[in-house]
């Protein structure tokens, strides 16, 4: 009985006793959730357009951030380093399409998945070889991002300005992406490929161009995520662990749904912060590493295709 009250009642009392703290926890969860959403979004775009489960998305985040910071360290000012990094991501997209995807067309999904793990290993080695393995500071100031914090309720609620900026930029990126997918000719072609790549091919959409494009867009999303996450901690290959945080977001939201990635990211981000803060101590702390998976698993038992995934129809 004692145990049941500590599990089911005390945490809720804690929440009610200090609502501002609760708000703070939710805000922290919200900010992490946005970053998870962004990573998941990169996954979803590539999965939809090419059916590739892109394990390298996490490492692309690090690679993009590392390129930016590394260029800056070598004396290139931020406003030039940023476009160069975007170019690097474009080059990466082209080389992945040429060297990895195109030769592996029509292979089973698991082979393509393994290939992206190969790409991950290559990028880790390549990034460390060029920029060195030690953690670096993100160039927050040079990119004109705000730092510092604003407080509410007599310093009880602290919002980091970089977090607010991150949410704003993420929202802008999402709106931009939605407009791009919905209104431009290329965006519509991209959605056609996602829907049915053979039909798209037959009406004259070039699959190769589309693949380069989605990898490039994912690369840019990775760069945004990398800058935001890098501003919160340092830039190092340890960051790629966030890719594993984005995976439960994916199964929660569905591999093929953009809305799913966003909603799923927020659920996982907020859920895991609340779980860690109010229940974590009961079982020894640091439950963040697997709590997200458990949340996602429970959802999956009821909806195997994720929250927004397309209904899986099977035929013999």
């Amino acid at each position, binding site marked *: 009985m004692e145990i049941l009250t500590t599990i089911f009642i005390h945490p809720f009392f804690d929440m009610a006793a200090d609502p501002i703290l609760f708000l703070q926890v939710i805000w922290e969860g919200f900010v992490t959730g946005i970053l998870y959403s962004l990573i998941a979004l990169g996954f979803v775009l590539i999965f939809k357009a090419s059916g590739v489960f892109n394990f390298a998305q996490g490492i692309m985040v690090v690679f993009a951030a590392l390129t930016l910071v590394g260029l800056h360290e070598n004396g290139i000012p931020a406003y030039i380093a940023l476009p160069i990094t975007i170019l690097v991501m474009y080059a990466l997209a082209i080389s992945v399409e040429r060297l990895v995807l195109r030769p592996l067309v029509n292979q089973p999904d698991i082979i393509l998945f393994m290939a992206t793990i190969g790409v991950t290993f*290559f990028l880790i080695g390549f990034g460390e070889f060029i920029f060195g393995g030690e953690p670096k500071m993100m160039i927050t100031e040079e990119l004109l991002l705000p730092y510092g914090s604003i407080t509410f309720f007599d310093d009880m609620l602290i919002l980091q300005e970089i977090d607010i900026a991150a949410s704003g930029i993420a929202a802008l990126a999402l709106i931009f992406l939605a407009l791009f997918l919905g209104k431009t000719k290329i965006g519509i072609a991209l959605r056609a490929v996602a829907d049915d790549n053979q039909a798209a091919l037959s009406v004259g959409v070039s699959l190769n161009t589309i693949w380069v494009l989605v990898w490039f867009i994912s690369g840019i999303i990775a760069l945004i995520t990398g800058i935001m996450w890098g501003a919160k901690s340092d830039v190092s290959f340890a960051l790629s662990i966030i890719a594993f945080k984005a995976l439960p977001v994916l199964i929660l939201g569905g591999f093929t749904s953009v809305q799913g990635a966003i909603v799923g990211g927020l659920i996982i981000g907020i859920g895991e912060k609340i779980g860690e803060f109010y229940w974590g101590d009961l079982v020894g702390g*640091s439950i963040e*590493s697997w709590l997200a998976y458990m949340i996602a698993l429970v959802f999956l038992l009821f909806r195997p*295709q994720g929250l927004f995934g397309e209904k899986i129809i099977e035929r013999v």
Partner: protein
Amino acid sequence: MLYREAGQFKTTYIRDQELFPVKQDRWGIFVIIGFSFIIVPLIANDYWLQAILIPFLIYSLSALGLNMLTGYAGQLSLGTGGFMAVGAYACYKLVTVFPETNVIILILISGLFSAGIGLIFGIPSLRIKGFYLAVATLAAQFFFEWLFGRVQWFYNYNNSGAIEVPVRNFFDIAVTGPTATTQARYMVVLCIVTVLALVAVNLVRGRIGRAWMAIRDMDIAAELIGIRPFPTKLIAFAISSYYAGVAGALFVFTYLGSAEVEVFDINMSFEILFMVIIGGLGSISGAFLGAAFIVLIPILITNLPLILGIPINSATVEHFNFMILGALIVLFLIFEPHGLAKIWSIVREKLRAWPFPY
């Protein structure tokens, strides 16, 4: 000419159903087993046994387990490292709780614990498929990494947080712990791996293996011809986790000697998956070939500059190691997506016809 099975015919059904129906295969297997049991312990030095052969055999065992799950039953799993950790920690607890019992038996029993865990994490496989399932099995990986790192009971409350393997004898010969010779440990691993590999060969060609393959190829069709998907998938998870568990126990007890849970991190799971894919999905010999490849390549990359006499510092070697491994994996998938086992079967076809072109 070398590999022609013409003239080999069977007169009884029992002879027809034997494990290796072709004479050359049979003798080849006998030679390999005899060589690894008799010649290798005599000629191999400690470096070869410790750095290459023991890890190779243990990885093969784990890859064998995953291959039955992923290659034969078609259920993608990324939780192998977690299941190996369960085996290792179960074995450690068993050995310290029952110090009198034979350690070999305990290693084999510890696999049962991870089989049970595998059953539990296999339950979602009925509802979810493909990559969704793969991500769900990651839950096992992260949960056990956390559990064995946090809950002190599992490592007997010692300060280091690592599990230290005690000395245990097998008929007066130390087989685990610091005083065991490399040869003794090699023999233990070799015996267990040989027996379990033979079991695996028989499993996949029998009723269970055929049911797995039917499920893999199309599960709804399999259901229609009377294979119950849920028990079949669960058996695949249990047996695969059993192999992973025994491999995990051997990994700590005969290879590392002492270990923290970080040994069984997510990279371990990926390494084993690489072995299965590079070796060839749905092939027993593929598990061994893949393990050999993944064990040997990093050693080769590290030692090649030394052999060639190129001065290079170890950090750069580490980076190149990653780059070359990544590039090799991609190249391998492009040129032979069916793995080393496929290459071997091509070679075999060529050998049959040799010296004629066809």
